[in-house]
C-alpha cells in the first residue's frame, strides 16, 4: 500500500539520485540493506580504532556464530510463515545433553550425536504440533520454550555440567584457515540454506507455503510434511549450535542464551525476511546478522556504557529498517 502512495513522484527521486556518484547510486538501487551494511562497515573501520584488525574480525565472526547459525534455519521457518521461539531453550538443552552423555559414556561421538538428535527431535515435535493440529507456532514453540528449558534444568540438576572428556573441547576450537569450527559451521549453514532456499523445490515450496498455505496445498505441496521438516531442521541446527557452544565453553549451561530467540528473529527481520511468510533472502539474513554483530562489537571497542548500548541497539535497529523501507519505496517510485 505505502508503495502505491510513493509511486506518484518518480521524477523527484530520480533527480535527487543524480547528485550521488555512480557506483554508490547503483549500490543504493540494487539493495538498500547491503548498502547500509557496507556504509556502516566502512564507517566503523574508519572511526573505531582496532575495528579493522584481523583479530577483531575473527572475534566478531566468532561472536555472531550462535545467532548466525540459527538465523539460517529461522529464515526457513519465517519463510514458511511460522516462528520458532524455542531455539534458545534447544541450545541450552542440547548443550546440557551433550555434556551429560559425553561425560557418562566417555565418547564424544555419542555425546554429540545424542545432543544434536535431541535438538532435531524437539524441532520435529514442534513441527508435528504445528502441522498436525494446526496450532499457532508462536504458542506451540512458546510452550516448547518453557518445557525444553525445564528439561535442560532437570537434566543438569540446575547447575552447569562440566565436561570431563578433553576431546570434546577440540570441537569448539579446531581451526582451519584461521577460523574455528563454529565459524565454519555458520558459513556452512549459510551456504546450505542459501542453496536450499533458492535452488531446490523444497525451498521454493517453503516460500510458497508461507505466501499462501492453502494455495500451496492445492498446488500439490505436502504442507504438513514440509512444516515438520522445516521445524526439524531448525531443531537440528539449533542442536548443532548448542553442542558447539558447549564445547567452546567447556560446559553445558542450562541458563545459557536467554533471549536468543528474539535476537535471531530480529536479525532475520532486519535482513528483510517477512514475518507474514513468503519472503526471505539469505544475503539479507547474513547482512542482518553482520550489522547486529558489528554494532555490538564496535560498542565494545568504543567502551560505550552499558545503558547507552541499549539506546544504540534500539536506534540502529529502527534506523536500519526505516532506511530499508525508504529505499524500497523509493525504488518502487523511481522505476
Amino acid at each position, binding site marked *: 500500500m505505502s508503495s502505491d502512495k510513493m509511486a506518484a513522484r518518480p521524477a523527484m527521486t530520480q533527480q535527487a539520485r543524480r547528485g550521488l556518484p555512480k557506483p554508490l547510486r547503483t549500490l543504493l538501487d540494487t539493495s538498500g540493506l547491503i548498502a547500509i551494511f557496507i556504509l556502516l562497515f566502512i564507517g566503523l573501520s574508519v572511526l573505531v580504532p582496532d575495528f579493522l584488525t584481523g*583479530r577483531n574480525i575473527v572475534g566478531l565472526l566468532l561472536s555472531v556464530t550462535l545467532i548466525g547459525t540459527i538465523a539460517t534455519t529461522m529464515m526457513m521457518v519465517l519463510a514458511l510463515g511460522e516462528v520458532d521461539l524455542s531455539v534458545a531453550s534447544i541450545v541450552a538443552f542440547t548443550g546440557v545433553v551433550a555434556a551429560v552423555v559425553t561425560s557418562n559414556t566417555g565418547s564424544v561421538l555419542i555425546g554429540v550425536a545424542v545432543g544434536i538428535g535431541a535438538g532435531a527431535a524437539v524441532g520435529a515435535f514442534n513441527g508435528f504440533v504445528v502441522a498436525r493440529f494446526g496450532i499457532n507456532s508462536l504458542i506451540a514453540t512458546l510452550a516448547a520454550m518453557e518445557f525444553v528449558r525445564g528439561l535442560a534444568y532437570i537434566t543438569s540438576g540446575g547447575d552447569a555440567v562440566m565436561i570431563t572428556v578433553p576431546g570434546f573441547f577440540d570441537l569448539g576450537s579446531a581451526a582451519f584457515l584461521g577460523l574455528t569450527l563454529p565459524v565454519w559451521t555458520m558459513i556452512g549453514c549459510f551456504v546450505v540454506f542459501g542453496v536450499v532456499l533458492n535452488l531446490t523445490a523444497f525451498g521454493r515450496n517453503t516460500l510458497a507455503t508461507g505466501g499462501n498455505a492453502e494455495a500451496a496445498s492445492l498446488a500439490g505441496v505436502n504442507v504438513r510434511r514440509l512444516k515438520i521438516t522445516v521445524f526439524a531442521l531448525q531443531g537440528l541446527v539449533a542442536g548443532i549450535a548448542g553442542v558447539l557452544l558447549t564445547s567452546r565453553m567447556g560446559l553445558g549451561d542450562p541458563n545459557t542464551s536467554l533471549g536468543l530467540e528474539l535476537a535471531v528473529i530480529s536479525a532475520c527481520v532486519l535482513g528483510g525476511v517477512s514475518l507474514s511468510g513468503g519472503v526471505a533472502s539469505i544475503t539479507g539474513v547474513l547482512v542482518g546478522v553482520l550489522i547486529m554483530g558489528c554494532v555490538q562489537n564496535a560498542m565494545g571497542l568504543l567502551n560505550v556504557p552499558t545503558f547507552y548500548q541499549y539506546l544504540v541497539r534500539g536506534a540502529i535497529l529502527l534506523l536500519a529498517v526505516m532506511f530499508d523501507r525508504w529505499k524500497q519505496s523509493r525504488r518502487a517510485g523511481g522505476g
Partner: protein
Amino acid sequence: QDEVKIGFIVKKPEQAWFINEQDAATALGEEKGFEVVSLAGEDGQQVLSAIDNLNSQGADGFVICPPDVRLGPAIVNRAEQYGMKVVTVDDQFLGPDGEPIASVPHLGMSGYKIGRQVGEAIAAEMEARGWDLDETAALRISNNELPTAKARTDGATDALLDAGFVQDNIFDAPQQNTDTSSAFAAASPVLSKNGRFEHWVIYALNEESVLGGVRASEQYGLSADQVIGIGINGSGAAFAEFQRQSPTGFYGTVAVSSTMHGRQTADNLYTWITTDEKPPANTETTGTLMTRDNWQQVRADLGL
C-alpha cells in the same frame, strides 16, 4: 607499551552492584593512570566475545565476574592464548574437578557465607523480639536456576537451622526472575497457604526479592513487627525502604561494598601487570548488617 589497559567484565551489567564495581575501577584507573574497559558477559558466549574484544584493543588483562563459575577453564584458556592476566571478583572459577582454580587470584565474598550472615542476623533479631519458634515460618524466595542465589539461600537456611529454626517451617517460594514483582508473585501462594503462622522471616538472593516478599506479607495483613526480612547487597532498594516514614517488615540488609570490590581487584590486577607481583590467591570479604538505624553510617563507610 605506554599505557596499561585492563578490562572489567561483569555478568549483570545493568545491576547497581556491578555498575558500582566498574565505576570504582574506572575511577581508580583515572587516579593511577590506566584505562579500564567495562564490558558485559552475560553468558559464556558474550564473555568470550568480550575477551576477544579486549584482545583487539590490546588490553593486558581483565577482572571478571563470570556468568558461570565453571566457565573458568574456558576463560583461563582464552586469556592464556592472548597472554592476558585474569583475576576474578565476586564469583570464583571452578576447575574440572569442581575445586576452585587456585592459579587465578580471587576477591569476593562467598555466597554461602554471606547467606549465613543473613541467617544469623535473622536469628538474632528473632531472639531480640522474643518470637516463639513454633509460630515462626520462613519464606525462602529461591531461584535455584542461579547457583549464587542457591548458595546464598542455602547459607541462610543452614544458619537458621543451627539457631534452632524448625525445618518444617521453612517454605520455598521459587521466583522466575530476580526482581520485586516476581518475588511478590512467588510469595503470595505460600503466605496464603500458611496463614496459621504468627511470624515470618524472609530471605532471598537480593534486596529486591526480599522486598517483594515483604510486600506480599503486607498484602496478607502481616504488620511490620511480625516480619523480619533481610536482604543482601546495600543498594537503592534498601535505602528506599529505610527512608520510609514508618518501619516495614524489611528489617535490614547485609551490605557489601561493591566499590571496595571494584577498586581492590582493579588495583590488584594493575599491580600484577606493572610489577609482576601476583595478588593473593583468595581474599574473602564480608558484609555489614545495615538496618534502619545505621544505614546512612554504613553506607558512607562502605562508599556505596
